């Protein structure tokens, strides 16, 4: 299947090293302690953070630090065929690797015995949701005021029609030759999430990493921008108002 034209233009009009349009908003939910909404092309992902809060069940508590528990979920109508609600094997694996990536950036030792719960809901999917997930979740963690080393931008690089291309969308993912999602800390170059499947030579892998690292830096800027806007909005909203006592203060 020919997904890239002879002059290097992809299925959806992008160049091989071009990201889809990205939109990030922080603080979009009222009940959650922190939240973020991310659009990554046609992906629509919502992340919420609750915590640090008491960890249930007890035997999962760590006396030395908080545990970071991420649940990644696709809603029933986020994909072509209706997905039955509840976790499937794919989402269990993705939840695990995102939990591990986020754990590294949170100062978990500040909150012993607690749980920091991160919920990622994929409202609409178009390839790359496992990268949109940590991108949104780390903004939501920051929105919740949880001390962190840094944000976690994430993107997938792939191989399509024997070319290494950035940020696969659905058709490229379905008919491509390889997929390499990564998440990293751009400042230090540390890799927090890395999977790969398909077929890549070492040279292709090196090119993919180059594209991915560059893209993560761009995503990182968009993340920071969303938090800056959120901060501005909060300032504006902070007017004294007669209000019932709020439970959050308890």
């Amino acid at each position, binding site marked *: 299947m020919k997904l890239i034209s002879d002059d290097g233009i992809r299925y959806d009009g992008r160049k091989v090293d071009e990201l889809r349009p990205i939109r990030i908003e922080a603080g979009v*939910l*009222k*009940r*959650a302690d922190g939240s973020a909404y991310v659009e990554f092309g*046609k992906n*629509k992902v*919502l*992340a*919420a953070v*609750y915590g640090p*809060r*008491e960890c249930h069940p007890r035997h999962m508590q760590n006396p030395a630090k908080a545990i970071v528990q991420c*649940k990644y*979920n696709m*809603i*029933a*109508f*986020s*994909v*072509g*065929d*209706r997905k039955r*609600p*509840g*976790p499937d094997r794919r989402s269990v694996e993705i939840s695990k690797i995102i939990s591990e990536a986020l754990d590294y950036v949170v100062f978990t030792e500040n909150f012993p015995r607690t749980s920091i*719960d991160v*919920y990622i*809901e994929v*409202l*609409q*999917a178009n390839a790359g949701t496992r990268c949109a997930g940590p991108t949104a979740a780390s903004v939501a963690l920051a929105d919740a005021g949880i001390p962190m080393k840094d944000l976690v931008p994430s993107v997938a690089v792939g191989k399509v029609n024997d070319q290494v291309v950035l940020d696969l969308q659905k058709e490229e993912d379905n008919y491509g030759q390889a997929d390499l999602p990564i998440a990293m800390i751009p400042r230090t170059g540390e890799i927090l999430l890395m999977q790969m499947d398909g077929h890549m030579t070492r040279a292709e892998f090196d090119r993919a990493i180059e594209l991915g690292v560059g893209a993560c830096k761009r995503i990182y800027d968009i993340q920071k921008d969303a938090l800056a806007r959120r901060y501005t909005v909060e300032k504006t909203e902070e007017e004294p108002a007669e209000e*019932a*006592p709020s*439970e959050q*203060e*308890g």
Partner: protein
Amino acid sequence: MKMARAVMSEIKRDHIHKLLAKGRRVDNRAWDEFRPISIQPGFSETAEGSARVRIGNTDVLVGVKMTVGEPFADTPNKGVLSTNAELIPLASPTFESGPPDEHSIELARVVDRGIRESQMVDLEAMCIEPEKEVWIMFTDIYVLDYDGNLFDAAFLGAVAALKNTIVPAKDNDKGEDFPLPIRHFPMSVTAVQIENSILVDPTLDEEKVAEARLTVTTDENGDLRAMQKGLAGALTLDQVYKVIETSQRLGNDLRKLIG
């Protein structure tokens, strides 16, 4: 922390009760006034129909997916409606992961009855071949942010999503796509009873101190299509009548929002 929370909830309760004694609500609404409502139809491109509904801070996303399948044996010439509600833990610290619990099952079933019993969708038009093939409609309700009155937000979302649904006939080799055949626009209105006051569209804080809840679904003619009393308190018959009349009246306002 638990102590703090218990004290807090005691203080909140007193606050609500005191205001009620003066005929007021915490957010200054009238007893029969809804919070601001926004409806965003077609939120999802992957669903056949969808709507995101906000009532105050309550935020609900509803999607409709359609597939071709077999009819039920006792309704061989009718399409199949299936309604599911997910109280995902993203929406509230009190929601837990896992299969639907009694709260989400009640929510889904009350919405389902309101749609089914009002004969909103012409299910006979959704039959492809009697006894063999009919359209199956899955309506999935996702609560994204929970600040009370899920029943009305979910119902409004379901009605808006169904109205907005295009049957994917072409992709299923069943001719041209067409909009879902809608016959009625039922509307649900929920009220709670607190110390013998009736309050429409309760916030979460109001729900927490409410003694009884009543949801009444009416059609364009003001006829009753579905009702559900909830919570561990009682209602007098006069209170029931009051909620019915309010539902008839406010239902007309809500119906205009759907367009």
